[in-house]
């Protein structure tokens, strides 16, 4: 506690409006491209368009939990409260996006596989990742002392990141219904039509900006909360 560095003001509120505008604009462009510009899939028809939501959500879930890992290492290394604020913000946003990722996956599974849920590795490992980070938030919620809470959460944030590669590679390790990675494929170019790939890339960019916007808002809130904690 004594070696913890007391937080000062931050510059995040200044960039947040610009991020918000960029996120909203790119989201509109990505949605228009996904709904009207990208061609219809020869096998799945229009149902496949949920790909432009599902894949970015998956990417954000991975990104959010890797950021939790990096921020956790940062906290343990420096004891700067900024890193703890980043970790909690990213974990909360990651849980939200993982939940949406599972819901979007279920909506896509029903017309293509005939079921809302099936016990296949990608789905189960994603659900486990979701539960793991709910546990992370629970651990934070049950701890009262700031420094101890941050340290406990950081240690668990480092352990929990193990699940991220497991989720991504689970489709390669086991025979499953889920399709193999479409973009990040080992030794091959993306298995998508060029206009579909461009739409997907724009969607990925838009969702990443949304994540960045949420992060600036939540980190600012957490820093303000920490500031009150230190001054009272």
């Amino acid at each position, binding site marked *: 506690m004594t070696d913890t560095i007391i937080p000062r003001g931050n510059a995040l509120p200044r960039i947040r409006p610009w991020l918000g505008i960029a996120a909203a604009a790119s989201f509109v462009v990505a949605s228009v491209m996904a709904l009207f510009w990208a061609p219809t899939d020869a096998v799945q028809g229009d149902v496949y368009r949920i790909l432009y939501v599902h894949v970015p959500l998956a990417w954000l879930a991975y990104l959010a939990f890797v950021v939790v890992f990096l921020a956790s290492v940062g906290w343990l290394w420096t004891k700067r409260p900024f890193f703890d604020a980043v970790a909690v913000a990213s974990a909360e946003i990651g849980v939200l996006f993982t939940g949406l990722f599972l819901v979007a996956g279920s909506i896509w599974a029903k017309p293509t596989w005939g079921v809302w849920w099936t016990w296949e590795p990608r789905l189960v490992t994603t659900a486990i990742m979701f539960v793991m980070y709910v546990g992370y938030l629970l*651990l934070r919620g049950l701890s009262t002392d700031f420094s101890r809470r941050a340290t*406990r959460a950081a240690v668990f944030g480092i352990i929990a990141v193990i699940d991220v590669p497991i989720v991504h590679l689970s489709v390669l390790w086991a025979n499953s219904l889920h399709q193999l990675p479409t973009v990040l494929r080992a030794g091959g170019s993306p298995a998508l039509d060029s206009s579909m790939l461009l739409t997907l890339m724009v969607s990925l960019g838009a969702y990443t900006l949304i994540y960045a916007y949420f992060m600036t808002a939540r980190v600012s809130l957490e820093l303000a909360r920490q500031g009150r904690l230190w001054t009272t």
Partner: protein
Amino acid sequence: MALVAVRELRAERRQPDGVVAAVTFIAVLVLLESLVVGPQIARDADVAAALFWLALTFATILATMRSFDRELEDDALEGLVALPGGRDALFGGKVLSLTIVLLLVAVVGGVLSLVLLDLRVALAPHLLVVVLLGVLALPPIVIVDVVLALRLRARAALVPILALPVLVPQLVAATRGTSAALSGDAVGALAWAGLLFAFAVVYTVIGLTIVPAAIE
């Protein structure tokens, strides 16, 4: 480390409530298993292996929590941290002693499963290797999670929530390896045993790296 392990085993011998709770827990689950799913399904190698490892994992959580409860009741944790080797020795000693306790629990639970469920073991040496390596991979992560939840309310609920998702790869490997050894798949059993060895090493290294930060 050896000092902590010996002290822990002596405490367990004097007051064996952790071992007794873990053994009773695994015995109850083996008995319930055949009642709940029926003897025919319970005898299936996959089902028997899965329930054995789930039971052993919960038994690990019980024994580990009891071990740390004892330290808290006696106000001994600070003293243990102050020993030569500090937090690393505390972690290593706990891992060592809990592994020995768990091997005992696994032997009792395993024999009960084999006898009560009338399981046939096709490859006994392979089964022993899988169980040994599976047990080695359990304590490091459970100890870290128990340390994280130390002195928190709702700790009994929190530890399984934190530990079980992290242990999923280990549970899958141990279950598949046990099932392979029971049904005579030597190559499969050894492959899963190799994976379990890797998990044991990775989990121990992770524990040794971050436990100093976790124990305050």
